[in-house]
């Protein structure tokens, strides 16, 4: 029976002083006792509004109830039916602004730790023998472009519906941002590999090193490969730069470059792995989203003595998950709020400092957030050896530039129906960051899932 307890069962974590210097996972995960204790906090509301806060509509009280009565297989089945990537979402979703913000407990107490429980169930599932298998019952071939969150979920959902699916991935390994962006200490690659293994067991084929729009055209997928529908999940991988002086100095990188060198290319193993990453003593990251937190915390693990966040707005406007922010503070990251970078300073071609200006909050801007306004005469210099930009990404133009009839908006995002993901081309669907611009893993997963349903309805209309 539900037990009223005000406090969320805390997630066991590794000591900040130790974990800040290696790449092993920070969160240790609930034990069975933690999970049972926390599951009992769920009130099992008649109308569970937490489900409305979930982009893939996981029947949250149902799976938590299964945990509380010890039916782990049942809990895992409920989760997996709604969300093909539970072990990943349990780790990287911003639950505090989604399901957990809707939890009835939250009015007076902590919300139920839905994310931690999701992770617990998915991790239990990973210790079990795989029960899924390929059951291809349909003849229509589907191509998915990009093996990131939206593509993986779309492919998994289509495979579950019986379609033969091939994912085309441009890089040498699948996962998209889950592989090149999110660091090992937050999402171990073994978890990602396991989830991808499940998809493969379900019959999903993954072909790496094929760039649709370059190696093969979108039209060739229909004409030569006989696909009945295509899903585009190419993400938002193109990094933005500020356009301030000094940005081309050696030691300035996009967060994408820094994280790709470390995560995808395993730069932390250099010289055993071949891709180097040069990290100096003082490492500044511009921006305060999840990518910025990942980059700044990675810099500590790569040997930086001092890791700084430089953000022109205040703590309140920060885009990062609360948990990442807290972990960053514990690990010793320093935050320069209301600080606007003006110029990267250098000597002999290498970064030596970041010239900044103090800001104050003014009126609200178009995003609804208070607009930062410069304070006259407040310029100062932060001595740093690296400057990493984590100020956002835009959709990759490779496919849209080489494909006719695919409409994009002025931000370069694909125009697609919000519900079905249908683009301006017949039988071409899209979802995830390629449509929304940089967002979250779970929003991409939700879009992939809806598009899979829409593809199914288009190909197998109900009689």
């Amino acid at each position, binding site marked *: 029976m539900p037990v009223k307890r005000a406090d969320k069962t805390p997630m066991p974590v590794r000591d900040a002083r130790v974990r800040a210097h290696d790449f092993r996972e920070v969160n240790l995960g609930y034990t069975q006792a933690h999970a049972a204790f926390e599951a009992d906090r769920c009130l099992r509301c008649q109308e569970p509004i937490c489900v409305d806060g979930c982009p893939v509509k996981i029947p949250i009280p149902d799976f938590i109830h299964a945990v509380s009565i010890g039916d782990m297989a049942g809990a895992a089945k409920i989760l997996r039916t709604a969300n093909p990537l539970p072990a990943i979402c349990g780790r990287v979703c911003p639950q505090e602004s989604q399901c957990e913000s809707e939890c009835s407990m939250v009015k007076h107490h902590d919300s139920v730790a839905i994310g931690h429980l999701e992770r617990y169930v998915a991790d239990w599932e990973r210790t079990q023998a795989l029960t899924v298998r390929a059951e291809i019952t349909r003849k229509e071939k589907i191509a998915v472009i990009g093996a990131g969150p939206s593509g993986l979920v779309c492919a998994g959902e289509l495979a579950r519906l019986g379609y033969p699916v091939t994912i085309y991935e*441009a*890089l*040498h390994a699948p996962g998209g941002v889950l592989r*090149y962006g999110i660091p090992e200490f937050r999402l171990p690659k073994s978890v990602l590999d396991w989830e991808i293994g499940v998809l493969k067991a379900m019959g999903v084929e993954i072909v*790496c*090193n*094929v*760039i649709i729009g*370059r*190696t*093969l*055209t979108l039209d060739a997928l229909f004409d030569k490969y006989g696909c009945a529908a295509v899903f585009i999940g190419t993400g938002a*991988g*193109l*990094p933005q*730069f500020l*356009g301030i002086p000094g*940005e*081309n100095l*050696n*030691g300035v*990188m*996009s967060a*994408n*470059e820094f994280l*790709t*060198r470390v995560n*995808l*290319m*395993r730069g932390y*193993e*250099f*010289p*055993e*792995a*071949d*891709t*180097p990453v*040069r990290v100096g003593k003082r490492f500044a990251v511009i921006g305060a989203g999840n990518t910025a937190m990942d980059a700044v915390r990675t810099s500590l693990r790569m040997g930086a003595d001092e890791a700084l966040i430089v953000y022109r707005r205040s703590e309140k406007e920060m885009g990062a998950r609360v948990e990442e922010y807290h972990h960053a503070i514990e690990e010793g990251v320093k935050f320069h709020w209301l600080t606007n970078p003006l110029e990267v300073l250098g000597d002999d*071609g290498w970064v030596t400092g970041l010239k900044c200006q103090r800001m104050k909050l003014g009126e609200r801007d178009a995003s609804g957030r208070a607009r930062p306004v410069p304070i006259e005469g407040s310029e100062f210099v932060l001595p740093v050896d690296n400057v990493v930009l984590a100020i956002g990404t835009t959709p*990759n*133009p*490779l496919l849209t530039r080489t494909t006719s009839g695919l409409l994009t908006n002025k931000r370069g995002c694909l125009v697609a129906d919000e519900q079905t993901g249908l683009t301006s081309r017949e039988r071409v669907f899209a979802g995830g960051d390629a449509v929304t611009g940089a967002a979250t893993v779970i929003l991409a997963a939700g879009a992939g899932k809806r598009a899979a349903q829409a593809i199914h309805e288009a190909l197998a209309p109900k009689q």
Partner: protein
Amino acid sequence: MPRILETRRLTPVTKCFRIDAPLIAASAQPGQFVMLRVRDGGERIPITIADYDRAAGTLMIVVQEVGATTKRVCALEAGDEILDVAGPLGGKIELPPGGHVCGVGGGFGTASLLCLMRELTARGDKTTAIVGARSKDLLILLDDLRPVVHNLEVCTDDGSAGFKGFVTQRLAQLIAGDGPGRPDHVVAIGPMAMMRAVAQTTREPKVKTLVSMDPLMVDGTGMCGGCRVTVGGKALFACVDGPCFDAHEVDFEVAMRRNKQYVREEKLAMERLACMAAR
């Protein structure tokens, strides 16, 4: 995994590979490149496509041993497979038809002139290739290039073959009206210093010139921005906006400095490789 069908040593440090890669061969265009990776944990390196045979489904690349990864590539032989080959990436070289195009190749960059010159000659352009090296034995692919151009101009620093001097000196003579005459377009592919010298040679006489930039890259698909090149004061990504840019707009100083970012690590990797080979 793409299999190597044939290899040819061109000089002690350059090797030519013919690879079975039908999808890439079918869509490759002059000026584009592929990303290679040769081992687990290996880095991704961009290599310009030298030539392709669409009917045979093969790709030709020329690799020069400059670092640990290129050394590993050059250790591969016919029958070996390359772990990852992705492409074609980057934009193709586009030139208005009907003019006189002069391709300038330095070092192993000469290889990349092959498919470009063949396509231009086939469509009816007048084509000249100026290729150079320090001495005769370092000149590569002359017999491959000769049948696909109208004029082949060979230069060596020591005069052991062809014109004695730099490719830029011969190019200046052509612009002045010598030999096949002033080109309408110049395309330079080779070491950064050579491309900068070509840009200087053609700037005054206002001959439109493209250079194929070869910056450090991680993914090669637009994701990292590590390959940004300053062109006309703007930072452009060589992998999606290039790799060929207007030579007179490129900031070579910045490009050369950026290419030296990892010299220390490259040296370490080379020493390590030598050490492993010695064991």
